């Protein structure tokens, strides 16, 4: 009997070998810079085998303005509006980071009230940025309603920005030695109301996202990244915490007064796209908590507490760096000063620059339809990537 089967088995094996060897043509698809998925000017080249992506290569640099070189030409206060333009969604955090770095170089301590106001402004900015990201994820998954609902909520926070510092997005609010102006009248009332309202509205958006099996199944179980990989390729921020790295600069390396407010750092070990989504959503709730606590602290400090200290115009020579938890990850500024009123070199470490460099890791084995949904979790912003 074995003899009669043997040729058939051999033929089958041969066929199997042929099938294994058979190679379909792989093609490069170039997405961007004019593509609805690229939220900004960048290109993603993906190599696809049928519908499955096997390789990816991001191309950035269309927006390279030489930001770091430009700063060498300007006095210290003039760089603050420029730092706003690093990222339109997280302008407050970059200004804050810049001011912190210069303050560190000056060795000065800023008033308590300024620290808390900066925390409030930062967290509002974080919510803004996360809402923008939520909107992007919604559209990339094909649901425009999420986009508009998230943008609607963001509008209320932008109104808060207008009331606080007179501009919606390029806030230009933190200053070296404090903040631009004191909190305006009734600001604490407005912000608490907005936050309360926002939490209710966020549940509605979550109902659209998490209670829809279509959207969950689009994110669940794709683009796995392990903890070691995440740390090694330099993923930071929510993307990293979704992969199981329990690290948040606000908690583990606190700056300003983050060690005096109580909040949780969400960490998930799943490592898929959905985990990264969930981290950001939880962070919005935690930001609301931080805002509530910080506003209480501001109220306790009283109306006449100092909010801005006069800073000298010249920075003593030396090298200093500061890092902070940007909405998208770890941002770092490295300042080389030479004793004049202009920086000798200012380097910005943008979280997205590193996050997007790991696009290959994130996209491998993912279908074309999921590439936008996976890369939306980076929360792309080209202003800071290209600088």
């Amino acid at each position, binding site marked *: 009997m074995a003899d009669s089967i043997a040729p058939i088995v051999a033929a089958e094996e041969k066929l199997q070998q042929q099938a294994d060897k058979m190679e379909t043509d792989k093609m490069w698809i170039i997405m961007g810079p004019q593509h609805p998925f690229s939220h900004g000017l960048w290109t993603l080249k993906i190599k696809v085998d049928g519908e499955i992506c096997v390789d990816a290569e991001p191309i950035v640099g269309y927006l390279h303005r030489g930001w770091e070189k430009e700063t060498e030409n300007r006095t210290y206060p*003039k760089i603050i509006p420029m730092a706003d333009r690093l990222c339109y969604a997280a302008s407050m955090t970059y200004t804050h980071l810049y001011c912190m770095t210069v303050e560190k170089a000056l060795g000065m301590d800023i008033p308590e009230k300024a620290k808390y106001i900066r925390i409030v402004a930062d967290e509002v900015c974080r919510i803004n940025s996360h809402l923008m990201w939520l909107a992007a994820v919604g559209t990339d998954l094909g649901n425009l309603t999420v986009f508009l609902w998230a943008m609607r909520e963001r509008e209320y926070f932008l109104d808060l920005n207008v*009331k606080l510092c007179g501009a919606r997005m390029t806030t*230009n609010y933190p200053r070296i030695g404090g903040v631009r102006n004191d909190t305006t009248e009734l600001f604490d009332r407005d912000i608490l109301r907005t936050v309360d309202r926002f939490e209710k509205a966020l549940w509605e958006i979550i109902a659209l996202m998490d209670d*829809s*099996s279509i959207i969950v199944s689009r994110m669940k179980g794709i683009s796995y990244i392990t903890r070691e990989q995440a740390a090694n390729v330099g993923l930071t921020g929510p993307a990293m915490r979704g992969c199981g790295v329990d690290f948040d600069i606000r908690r583990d390396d606190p700056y300003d007064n983050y060690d005096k407010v109580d909040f949780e750092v969400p960490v998930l070990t799943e490592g898929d796209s959905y985990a990264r989504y969930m981290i950001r959503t939880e962070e919005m709730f935690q930001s609301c908590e931080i805002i509530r606590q910080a506003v209480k602290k501001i109220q306790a400090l009283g109306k006449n507490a*100092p909010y801005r*200290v006069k800073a*000298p115009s010249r920075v003593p020579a030396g090298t200093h760096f500061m890092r902070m938890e940007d909405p998208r990850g770890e941002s770092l500024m490295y300042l080389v000063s030479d004793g004049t009123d202009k920086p000798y070199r200012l380097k910005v470490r943008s979280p997205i620059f590193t996050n997007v460099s790991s696009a290959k890791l994130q996209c491998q084995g993912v279908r074309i339809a999921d590439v936008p949904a996976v890369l939306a979790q980076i929360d792309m912003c080209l202003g800071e990537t290209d600088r």
Partner: protein
Amino acid sequence: MAMKYLEKYPRSTARGLWVIKPQWHVLKLFAKTVFHRPVTVLYPYEKEWVPDNYRGRPGLDFDKCVGCGMCARMCPTACIKIVDSEAADGKTVKRPQVNLGRCAMCGYCAEYCPVDAMTVTPEYELAEFTRFDLLYGPRRLAYDKTTEGMKVKLEVTLQSDIDNGNAERRVSVFSLDRPELTDAKCIGCKKCAKVCPVDAIQMVEKGTNEKTGKPILRPVIDEVKCISCSNCIDDCPKDALVMKEVL
């Protein structure tokens, strides 16, 4: 402190009909917006309320301005240029001109104006047909509905005051820093007195030069009049004047 969202989600995949809830929420909003108005603002017809400190285009109080050039010095995009302009009494005075094509609306000009002549205004509809139209001269910069909130005050607390337990004292930056003369470097060229916008510098005779017999002139700064614009420091050919910072 506890997680709010991660406590409830992710929901178990076993829940049936998992597409009903989003539709219910959408339908709820639909029912609401059919009778109420949606949140969008019909822009050209309706406009959003903006607060006093809204940073639109810069505004200028022509008579208040002293032409010190502080705005031009602090402007991060270098869009402000000090130009000669004719005052009401026929004199030629220096006043800022703003190129709104480059303006980043950062509000530094209003913030650093020592006499509060420069203000922020809530005007943001600035489209013009040509780039030339975007040049706002000193007269065109005037904004007649200026309120107190539009004049951005630059008030700071001094570190020394905080250390002394006097933390609630706030002072204007422009009443603190004064230029200081290094006598040995000064050549008495009178340049500082010429460029001073508020005439705070008087050239005072301090003895006679032994070789040439000419009088030795030295600037004396009126501390009350000075607005610490540092024009004299910039124009000093021998770096004899230095800003003495009070911290």
